[in-house]
């Protein structure tokens, strides 16, 4: 059985790769394209570590078949910083020490960015519910929530 040829857009750039038809988008990103910022956690859609944007919608990339990416647009953690300058969320995660082992961090940042794009001023409760599908086994979440709310405040000021 020949491999499937996928032409897609990743972080604004056209990309192509070959994959097994049953391979996950997560595996294709990491193993096929070397985009290892997206992390593998549970592979059952429960942990949020593999979060990416697919045509503007937050999805677990382990629950997407790689060939589904044909003609779609994908944004991963690698597209979040602009060159050397970190996204405010990334900066605030550092300032608040909102990570320990770091495996959940890319998923949190991609998911939090999706939240702030649709709601620039979320309440703490809204933020906690939005991120309820991102599991962190190290931090206890409080620092993550503070980092997201702080980034939101800074981004609002920057656009005010």
């Amino acid at each position, binding site marked *: 059985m020949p491999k499937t040829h996928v032409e897609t857009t990743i972080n604004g750039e056209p990309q192509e790769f070959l994959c097994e*038809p049953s391979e996950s988008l997560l595996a294709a990103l990491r193993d096929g394209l070397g985009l290892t910022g997206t992390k593998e956690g549970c592979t059952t*859609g429960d942990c949020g570590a593999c*979060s990416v944007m697919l045509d503007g*919608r937050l999805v*677990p990339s382990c629950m*997407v078949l790689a060939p*589904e990416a044909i003609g779609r647009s994908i944004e991963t953690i690698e597209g979040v910083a602009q060159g050397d300058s970190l996204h405010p969320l990334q900066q605030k995660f550092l300032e608040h020490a909102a990570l320990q082992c770091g495996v959940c961090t890319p998923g949190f940042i991609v*998911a939090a960015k999706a939240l702030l794009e649709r709601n620039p001023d979320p309440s703490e409760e809204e933020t906690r519910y939005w991120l309820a*599908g*991102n599991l962190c086994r190290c931090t206890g979440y409080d620092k993550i929530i503070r980092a997201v709310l702080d980034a939101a405040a800074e981004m609002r000021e920057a656009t005010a």
Partner: protein
Amino acid sequence: MLSIRYEAPASVGEAVALLDADEGAKVIAGGTDLLVQYRSGLREPTAFVDVKRIPDLMEISIDADGLVLGAATPAAEVFENTEIRQLWPGVAEATDLIGSTQIQGRATLGGNLCNSSPAADTVPALIAVGAQAVIAGPSGERELAVEDFVTGPGQNVLGRGEFLVKLRVPRPGPRTSDAYLRLIPRTEMDIAVVGAGVALTLDEGGTCTAARVAIGAVAPTALLVPDAAAALVGSSVDDAALAGAAQAASAAASPIDDKRGTVAYRRKVTGVLTQRAAAIAAERARER
């Protein structure tokens, strides 16, 4: 490992042909059940037929007749639709209860129905509002009530070459609304111990003239409970009527004991949720 094919038909007819030609082919919409089942070895499809490139499957349209909801529309899109939230708040709240933000970006109402779990949250909510399932197959289209779709845990009426295209939900008339409640032991992301959906209509004086009550996770399939609806019709949805509906719903439940709850607990909670959902639906109906 044998390689599995990936197919992305562009039309309903093409999908039917693919499914009819290969009994092992499985439809993939959001994949949040199917891919977990596949990777754990529970299912071994010969092909994934991705139906998300078929326009009919991705449609949301609302007109004087009601809602037409493409079976592969993601849950997030359904919940974000303000008109759906206004017209069918119970369906919207059941949709919003499913999984995380990420899962809602993939999971679909059509998939929730076709996965045919007794605990599917949107199924009792859809039954309560009188939703119809539109199925395409080798001999054309057929349509049946959602309560007749699931035949047992993981089993449904779909035959060879058939798949779910869309759901049709009739537009609610004046003073008609719905509600869905479920019990889980935490606040987010769990599987229903019990679910209850209620839709009802009030007349100008506040008397209930029509009702539909559906319960989930307490029988091999979600159940429509006409006796619970009958307890509400003719009443002002007062305490006595609510207690009658609760009793009828508890009586209709035939739950199992498992790690999520015992038979006695589930039976009791079925009544409690039915009563509460009916009270919320009535409150909403009074405001419409």
